């Protein structure tokens, strides 16, 4: 017969220092499923790897055993998942950011060689899916764990019940920097004009773009394929120009109509110029990155070479994917990297689906990705990219540092249970 004992009444129990056990008990009491059903802290049995999302990626050969953690490493991270990820954190991460990771509950990290992603709804704080044995393992892990911390800190420190609750605090700053950089443009005229007048024209040789008057921004965007935004911009410039000619070339021009048409053309021309100026600004950022030490890296173990693309992704987020849209039409290539079509706006992806159905959805992806890229640069021991971003986006950098500092200094109810910031 099994004898039941109360562990808490056992002598010495209170002196046991085991963050893993404490975390397991806390999670157990809440229930892994999040339903509140007590499951006593046992991790559910399941595979810790998943097949690749990209079915055609190169197969990963047998990997050498993960080297042990250097005993002299400060603030070693023990994720509780595959030790390979502990090794990456402890080899390429900074001690300060390792301490931050240790301060908060850890998320499950699953090996996934089909492209990293973070699933905020899996587990109490989400689950990281990241690669093992590919060239960019370090950068994928740091980026995805940046998403995880956005979520964890948001829940534990900012008491935000929605997912990814930390990055929402620096939206104003990146919008301000984005405007200053020429990446974020006031395009309200474009949307207002389309909504007020509608449009119907052969957008490509094979396809018509039809829009009724009174359409909302969502209605307009949801039918846009890659490249359509730029095609419509060019068409609107022509339409507004022709409209001026049309109202002027009559026997008795109506001064009100002429004035209105001229105003529209002026605003559309100014917007078009702003778009072209933005293209030039993006080219200059590419030049800046490619003339920095970042340009020399290729295939290095620390995966610094992948940070060029990460800077490109910040540009992609700031411009709501509109540089890729321009590339699709112009066939010029200026982007260093990014998330492609339909991720940072409500337009269609390359497969014809829509990821976002309102402006908040697209803003969500913009802020969380900028946060994760900033975190990736901050945790990495190589600070070249962090310095570039500090120069390009000083307000965002300042706010980001402030949010990280708050998270580092916060007194959490469970903080001590997870504090592993001691030297081994």
């Amino acid at each position, binding site marked *: 017969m099994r004898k039941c004992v109360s562990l808490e009444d056992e002598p010495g129990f209170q002196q046991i220092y085991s963050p893993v056990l404490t975390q397991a008990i806390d999670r157990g009491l809440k229930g892994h499923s999040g339903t509140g059903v007590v499951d006593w802290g046992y991790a559910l049995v399941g595979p810790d790897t998943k097949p690749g999302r990209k079915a*055609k990626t190169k197969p990963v050969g047998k990997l050498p055993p993960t080297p042990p953690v250097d005993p002299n490493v400060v603030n070693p991270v023990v994720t509780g998942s595959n030790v390979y990820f502990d090794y990456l954190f402890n080899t390429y991460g900074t001690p300060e950011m390792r301490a931050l990771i240790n301060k908060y509950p850890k998320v499950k990290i699953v090996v996934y060689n089909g*492209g990293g992603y973070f*699933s*905020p709804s899996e587990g109490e704080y989400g689950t990281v899916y990241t690669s093992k044995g590919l060239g960019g393992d370090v950068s994928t892990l740091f*980026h995805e764990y940046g998403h995880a911390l956005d979520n964890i800190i948001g829940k534990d420190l900012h008491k935000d019940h929605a997912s990814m609750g930390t990055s929402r605090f620096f939206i104003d700053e990146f919008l301000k920097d984005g405007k200053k950089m020429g990446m974020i443009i006031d395009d309200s005229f474009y949307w207002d004009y389309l909504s007020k007048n509608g449009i119907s024209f052969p957008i490509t040789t094979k396809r018509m773009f039809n829009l009724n008057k009174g359409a909302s921004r969502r209605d307009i965007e949801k039918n846009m394929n890659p490249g359509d935004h730029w095609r419509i911009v060019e068409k609107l410039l022509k339409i507004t120009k022709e409209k001026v000619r049309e109202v002027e070339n009559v026997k008795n021009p109506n001064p009100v109509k002429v004035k209105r048409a001229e105003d529209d053309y002026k605003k559309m021309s100014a917007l078009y110029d702003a778009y072209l100026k933005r293209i030039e600004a993006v*080219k200059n950022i590419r030049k800046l990155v490619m*003339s920095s030490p970042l340009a020399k890296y*290729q295939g290095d173990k620390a995966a610094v070479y992948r940070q060029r*693309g990460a800077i490109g992704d910040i540009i992609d987020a700031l411009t709501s994917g509109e540089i890729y849209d321009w590339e699709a039409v112009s066939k010029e290539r200026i982007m260093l990297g990014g998330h*492609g079509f339909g991720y940072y706006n409500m337009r269609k992806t390359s497969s014809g689906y829509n990821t976002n159905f309102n402006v908040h959805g697209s803003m969500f992806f913009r802020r969380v990705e900028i946060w994760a890229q900033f975190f990736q640069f901050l945790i990495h021991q190589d600070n070249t990219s962090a310095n570039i971003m500090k120069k390009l986006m000083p307000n965002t950098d300042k706010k980001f540092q402030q949010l990280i500092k708050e998270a580092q200094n916060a007194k959490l109810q469970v903080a001590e249970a997870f504090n592993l910031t001691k030297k081994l």
Partner: protein
Amino acid sequence: MMYTELELEFYKAETRHEEKFGEPPYFTGIINPSADGEEYISLIEEAIRKNKPLNQEKEVPPYLRTGKVIY
């Protein structure tokens, strides 16, 4: 404009794909040709060889298309 050699090779492969299928190849997640170009090129070459346009978006399981996951 300064490009890495890998990027230039990738753009050439991308052009070959577009010439054959009438559309460029599409990749999911963070697109980073200057870092992952080699992998992209081999995927494009395979797509051309097998005469099937490359669009990873279409191969993504439905639950990853919903916006509930973050790349």
